[in-house]
């Protein structure tokens, strides 16, 4: 990315914010922001607007009649239309059509779930890179785990977040934010290691069974740790009651796992 001509890379700021730049381009834009107050302000505006839009326009309830009318419409589609169009389709074959509708619904549900499952580790890796490159910021900067938990509780995330003190492992809390993994609300908090390592932990309501097949599952102390590698980031997922926890880092797998083992709690 060439920024030598003194131009403000307006749309590149947006791409940085949306986690679309590779490491080299991210580095170039971050370096530019560090020396350009206009672009530093611009990315804050985009970040604020994006987050306000996401919460202000989130999907609300659907009219009760809609689900029912959808099923009725699909049922009619399967029964009436083919009978009119295709003479050989007799009443005897209607049960087969009902099965076809049901199959469509099941396949649609399955494909949607598969789509969601396939995206989560990649999305968490993007979040990790976005934090590292400055594209996402923390709502609260604190090394105090109690203050961090109180902050999340005030924000009403709908589940009990657990911010563990990893001081004995040489990692201190940096801060956190209320975040989203795709459309699901999460809490995100960051630890800094003694040699400058950065670990990003996220927790959200869900199930590890919705994740794609892990590259490795490592059991420890009665908990299964699902390991993924995405975009140079190691991701370790595990289940705590109704909540999924994930620890993301760019260090060695065993180092990230060791911290996950420390943080995980059997519920």
């Amino acid at each position: 990315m060439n920024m030598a001509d003194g131009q403000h890379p307006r749309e590149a700021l947006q791409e940085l914010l949306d986690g679309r730049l590779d490491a080299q381009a991210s580095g170039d834009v971050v370096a530019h922001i560090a020396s350009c107050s206009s672009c530093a302000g611009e990315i804050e505006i985009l970040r604020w607007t994006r987050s306000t839009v996401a919460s202000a326009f989130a999907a609300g309830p659907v009219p009760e009649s809609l689900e029912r009318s959808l099923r009725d419409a699909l049922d009619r589609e399967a029964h009436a239309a083919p009978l009119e169009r295709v003479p050989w389709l007799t009443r005897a074959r209607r049960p087969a059509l009902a099965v076809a509708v049901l199959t469509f619904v099941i396949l649609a549900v399955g494909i949607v779930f598969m789509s969601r499952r396939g995206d989560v580790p990649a999305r968490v890796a993007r979040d990790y890179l976005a934090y590292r490159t400055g594209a996402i910021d923390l709502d609260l900067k604190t090394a105090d785990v109690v203050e961090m938990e109180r902050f999340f509780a005030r924000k009403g995330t709908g589940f009990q977040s657990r911010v563990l003190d990893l001081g004995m492992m040489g990692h201190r809390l940096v801060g956190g934010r209320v975040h989203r993994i795709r459309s699901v609300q999460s809490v995100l908090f960051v630890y800094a290691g003694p040699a400058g390592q950065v670990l990003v932990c996220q927790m959200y309501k869900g199930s590890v069974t919705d994740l794609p097949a892990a590259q490795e599952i490592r059991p420890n102390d009665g908990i299964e740790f699902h390991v993924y590698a995405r975009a140079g980031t190691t991701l370790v997922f595990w289940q705590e009651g109704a909540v999924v926890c994930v620890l993301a880092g760019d260090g060695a797998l065993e180092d990230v796992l060791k911290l996950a083992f420390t943080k995980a709690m059997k519920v």
Partner: protein
Amino acid sequence: MPLTRSLYNMALRLTRRPQDAADLVQETFLRAYRTFPNFTPGTNAKAWLFTILYSIFVNAYRRKEREPEMASIEDLEERFQRSIPVQDLNAHLQILGNLNIDWKGSEIQRELERLPESFRAAVLLVDVEDLSYEEAAAALGCPVGTLRSRLFRGRRILAVGLQEYACKLGYVRR
């Protein structure tokens, strides 16, 4: 049915009328049912359904849609160009952010409704529905570069609108 909430949300933002939105969602599922063999397993089903929804909207609903207060592209570009200096705007939005305003049903809704439909759809698909640029561009039938530009301008215009709202409420001064 999966994704009904997301599809209805998008349909409502596009048509602005609950009955039209419900009809649009129903037509989307029927079209998906009829063309299900065209769906490529492994691709994003959500993006596929949004592609169908937007296509039906453009062909069947947009023509009859009333858009009395729609801002013209030229007006928006002018607002965009003469918008408040970045540093001021940033400071003003931070003030708004700290007020913990519940934006649902408020000024931002009206700002979104005033955006041209292509800008509005880009913002909704990426920021609310979390589609990638490529998926959103495919759904809207435009190149990724166009989507990127609409998204940038849409976000920026919304930000300017919020800043003007802050001025109107007296939270900040020009």
